[in-house]
């Protein structure tokens, strides 16, 4: 049966245009069954799906805790007794529509793009969708959530160094500035523990860069101290920030490998940039969303940081002079 369907979407067959959809379904259900055609004859077990699923698993407990938190806050506001099941139920009914809308819109866009380009559907949505929901407050209307996400995904197609969740969240903030002052879904004391677990999973599986995390943290701490020297400010809030919003944002968004620097040598500068800018913005604007803004700004200049790191790296190489590679005269004319 599976073979039969696969044959129908082969190049030259009647339904070849549906290949991306069939591929997506089968590759989600089964391992690929394809063999290597060119050396190396063996390949590692790692796949893009595995990459995504590890991050998703790290994110999932935070998502559940966030959902609980939404219910918990609602019950608390209504001064009702807080019961785990009740809180989860309320949380789910608030967050589910957002999740469904985001994944629905996301899938629709990914499928359209894949059909248009006739390429395989990419798996990035799994993580970006959940992440996006978590950094928004539960009160944002669903249409805005979905619309902003759609724009984020399109922008991503156009420019590499953008984190679609982040861009989409910033669009929401721009449309509803009030959203910036409300705590996002994930914020609650319950999540911090899960964040630490996520942190261990991601660092342990080397899915994220230690360098980015470390440099962002150290530079943020230094910035807090410097700010304190020049302008006495509310230090405890800043410390809490390091455990909350800042932790979440650096862990899941700043370390994203696609929108962050692609060259490892640029990781420290990128991390320091985020740490310093986040604290400065936070100090100036006093809004929790400032960390997100800081990351977005740094990501805007990340291509340049990457370029710089690349130049430095290439300077270290002993150049290959192609003209020297052609020893005999009949080749000499072919060179530059």
């Amino acid at each position, binding site marked *: 049966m599976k073979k039969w369907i696969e044959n129908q979407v082969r190049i030259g067959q009647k339904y070849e245009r549906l290949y991306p959809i069939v591929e997506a379904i089968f590759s989600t259900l089964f391992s690929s069954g394809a063999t290597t055609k060119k050396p190396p*004859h063996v390949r590692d077990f790692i796949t893009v799906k595995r990459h995504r699923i590890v991050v998703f698993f790290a994110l999932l407990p935070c998502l559940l805790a966030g959902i609980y938190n939404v219910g918990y806050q609602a019950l608390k506001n209504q001064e009702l007794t807080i019961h785990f099941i009740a809180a989860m139920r309320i949380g789910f009914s608030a967050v589910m529509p957002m999740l469904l809308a985001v994944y629905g819109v996301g899938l629709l866009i990914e499928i359209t793009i894949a059909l248009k380009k006739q390429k395989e559907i990419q798996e990035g949505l799994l993580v970006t969708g959940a992440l996006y929901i978590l950094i928004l407050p539960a009160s944002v209307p669903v249409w805005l959530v979905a619309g902003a996400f759609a724009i984020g995904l399109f922008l991503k197609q156009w420019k590499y160094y953008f984190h679609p969740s982040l861009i989409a969240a910033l669009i929401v903030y721009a449309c509803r500035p009030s959203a910036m002052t409300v705590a996002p879904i994930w914020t609650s004391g319950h999540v911090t523990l899960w964040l630490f677990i996520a942190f261990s999973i991601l660092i342990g599986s080397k899915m994220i860069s230690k360098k980015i995390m470390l440099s962002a943290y150290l530079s943020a701490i230094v910035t807090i101290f410097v700010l304190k020297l020049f302008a006495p400010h509310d230090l405890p809030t800043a410390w809490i920030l390091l455990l909350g919003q800042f932790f979440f944002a650096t862990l899941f968004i700043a370390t994203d490998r696609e929108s962050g620097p692609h060259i490892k040598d640029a990781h420290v500068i990128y991390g320091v940039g985020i740490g310093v800018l986040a604290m400065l913005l936070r100090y100036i604007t006093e809004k929790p969303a400032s960390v997100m803004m800081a990351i977005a700004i740094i990501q805007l200049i990340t291509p340049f940081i990457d370029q710089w790191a690349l130049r430095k790296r290439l300077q270290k190489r002993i*150049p290959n002079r192609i003209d020297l590679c052609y020893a005999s005269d009949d080749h000499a004319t072919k060179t530059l």
Partner: protein
Amino acid sequence: MAQVSFMKTITVPNTCEINCLGKPSLEVKTLEAPELIGVKPPSVSNFELCLHVSIGDHVQIGTRLFSDKKYREVHILSPASGQISDIRYGPKNALDVIVIKRDKEESRLQISDQKTSLSTYQLSQVTRDSLVTSLLDGGLWTSFRQFPFRNIPDPKQIPPAIYVSIDQDEPFLPNGTVLLKDHIELFGIGVAVLNNIANGNLYIGVSQKNPRIKSALRELITHQIIGDYPANDPGVFLYHTKTSSELNNAWYITAQDVLRIAEWIVTAHYPIDQLITLGGPGVSKPMHYKTRIGMSIKDIVRETTITPNPRYIAGGIMTGRTTTQDDFLGADEHGVNVLSEETDQEWVPYIKPGLYRPTSTTAFLSALLPIRRHPLTTALQGSPRDCISCGDCMPVCPVNLLPQFIHKHLENNQENLAIEHGLLDCVECGLCSYICPSKIELTATFKSARSRLEKTGVSS
């Protein structure tokens, strides 16, 4: 740089251990030469062939079978005596193999008049030109390869340097200790020849994992190399020792060919034996074999295949060539490896914890267990995707390339940029393709870009 008298250490940071089952034991068995011997042209792109024999001709050991059109002094000699029974052609009508039906009593062609063996002392008296002529006559020039395209060098050139790596860490090729056992002295003679040819610019590397050879050849070895696959590749060795652009055109030769050269110099007989491995999870008793050059794959694997659906690979599992039972092993291929063709499908493999998954990453729980060898198969393990910029390919590149960037430049036809990024330093080890979660054929792209460059130069 003249040959250094004390050993230096090179640590190659970006290497990867491929933990595959089927590592050949150190036992060596001799395989008798079978009835049919096949001679393949060297696997280089610059060898344009001029055939000297036709079907039905009788040849002796040492008869010239074909020569290169450009460097007319470069010949391939027959490793067997008998009748040419078949000449097979491959794609684009290129010669694939000359099949010789062996005589019961084999005879040898007297190639050179050099009757007595040369001692190391005498070798130092011989001029470079006469050594080069001797190697050309002896059909051994094709043992040399020149960087960056790994083709056969011009015999009239003096190499900037010659590199020899004693060990090969690709799974699975002959072990340096097995190769040089009882041949230390012969290797010394080979080194003396190379020293002459390279005007003293000789680099000899040994793996740190091979202490016995390291101490036995202490006087000759210039570098000990620390690292897993492919730290001992001569291209990696070159990359980590080169000091100028000129060295990019250095030559290299395998330790096995150093021994063959020495044998030729000492005995004036065309060397017809080679040490090969039969390995991989698809064979019952992986080990080393001493064989005639040009054995068929069938004669090498015999009844040892234990997998129902085998893939025969001439060479190692990372860079070798897929072949069939009816094909022959080239003189420059030193192993046959057998893997299972795996087309079985598994439910949602990416969700499972993966305690026993073979992987060089840390994305499965198997990373927590001690390293063990796995029966690796030919499964692609995933479906092709766009590059997700994960950067996994960078820390495995032994010559510090950024495969992801080079790939993008080549996709955009920016060959100049790819060269600036070091495309010509790529040793085609296959590690970037091996590790890529998007299953992008990075190595194959680089390989074809390099051979395009070799043929046509830079177009943009």
